[in-house]
């Protein structure tokens, strides 16, 4: 199976879950999904396509909190970045994928403390990098975070 067939197969499998598909280069695919579909999409990549979960990147943007879940198909050398936009910045929430694979446990804890995203169903949302005494409601990777200046 060549890359084009593989990609069109993935696209048709995901169906209308894909809101916007962008092939930046042959090895870098970005696509947007509705946040409610994240568990299904993660299941598809991890269980069905046997993809490796690299990591997730949380980004604070003017439109909301974006989470990019990076999955890799090492046998063909393609990185898929699944983008979920959480519009409500006051209370950003998304379902946890930590029950699917253990590699997501730490990064969800990290995004919880640094960006203030609540991961519904995470087994243990507690501080990973910051101290337990870190003030509540202060999220260092948010744009409006001013530090203790």
């Amino acid at each position, binding site marked *: 199976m060549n890359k084009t067939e593989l990609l069109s197969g993935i696209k048709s499998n995901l169906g209308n879950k894909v809101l916007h598909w962008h092939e930046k280069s042959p*090895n870098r695919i970005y696509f947007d999904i509705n946040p409610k579909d994240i568990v299904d999409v993660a299941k598809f990549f991890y269980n069905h396509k046997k993809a490796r979960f690299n*990591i997730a*990147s949380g*980004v604070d943007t003017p439109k909301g909190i974006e989470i990019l879940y990076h999955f890799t198909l*090492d*046998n063909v*050398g393609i990185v898929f970045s699944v983008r979920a936009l959480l519009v409500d910045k006051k209370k950003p929430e998304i379902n946890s994928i930590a029950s699917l*694979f253990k590699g997501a446990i730490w990064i969800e804890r990290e995004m919880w403390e640094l960006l203030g995203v609540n991961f519904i169903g995470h087994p243990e949302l507690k501080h990973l*990098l910051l101290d337990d005494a870190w003030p509540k409601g202060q999220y260092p990777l948010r744009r409006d975070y001013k530090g203790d200046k």
Partner: protein
Amino acid sequence: MATIIPIGPYHPLQEEPEFFQLHVEGEKVLKLDIQLGYNHRGIEKLAESKTYDQILFLVERICGICSTSHPMAGVNAIEDLGNIVVPERALYIRTVICELERIHSHLLWLGLAGHFLGYNTVWMWAWKAREAVCDMFEKISGNRQSYSMMKVGGVRRDIPKDDVPEYLAAMDALIPTMDMFKGAIMDDPVLHARLKGIGVLTKEDAISYGAVGPIARASGVDIDVRRDHPYAAYPRLDWKVIVCQNGDIFDKTVVRLLEIFESIKMVKQALKEMPDGSIDSNPKELPIGEGIGQAEAPRGEVFHYVRSDGTNRPTRYKVRAPSYMNVATNETTVVGETVSDAAIILAAVDPCYCCTERMAAIDRDTGKTILTAKDLLRLCREKTEKIAKQFRR
């Protein structure tokens, strides 16, 4: 009696301060708690206020051992963002630097592992061999560590042709030393008894934790960024990915040991076949967009994500080091093993774990110290000695 053994968090030799709490009953480890963040420096946040050129110096300071892995992933990410073409010669120089780093990093780990097991001769010899590599780095870049070689579009310094024979000779001289290590480790019945079947990470767990690098490869997961997501000059070189199946400490050692031979081969080939020409394409601008860079560090895949709004500073710079995925695997590998094996199991992940001096076993009920750091190191070495005696009979 439930007992918690705290390990860490600080030690000058440790690459990343971490705090392990071993829950033990008698000799047996029941559970492991890992706490991170003791050296969190806010590098991702800091990167948002730096220019792309400055960021490479910043990320070079993430790791004190494999210092070039992060700049390598960084240039890959920024070049992916801007679709920047890099001159061939620069790609070869990048490969030489990255592979030399793998050699010195693996030798450093080998020495420390020997030290933990009471094989102090291995420690001294491995670090002696590592010196030759650090000397090469000094001659190439001016620094034994943090070489500042990577630059968006190329490399900062050339490797003069006149110096190449000297480097080739240094690599050749390393081969007999490595052969000696190979024999001493792979044929040693004591090490077999001490390391085989200990601290096993199953293939399923390696995949679930997203383990990378030698940890994944020792558990039969055949992944290597250098082959799967080609960068630098790797696709042009003749080498193979080392994979073992058992996932125990012995296989983790074997993977690293054999990788050193592959690295020596690659450095020699790259030095010999390096084409002439420019070492820098000098890109001036970056577009709006995003980029992903991967690089195979000695400990596994480094992953960088960068987002640009078209200015000279990124709006987001995400870094994922390999130990972020690998250290978590200790949660399963150490459970069910004995306290005397804990030091080497946690060390086998190669987080440059050396906080043995900070170990102390405390009775949870009375708060009284029952085992000191020295005791634990002694336990680890006594087990080796005990096994060695059986073989001497």
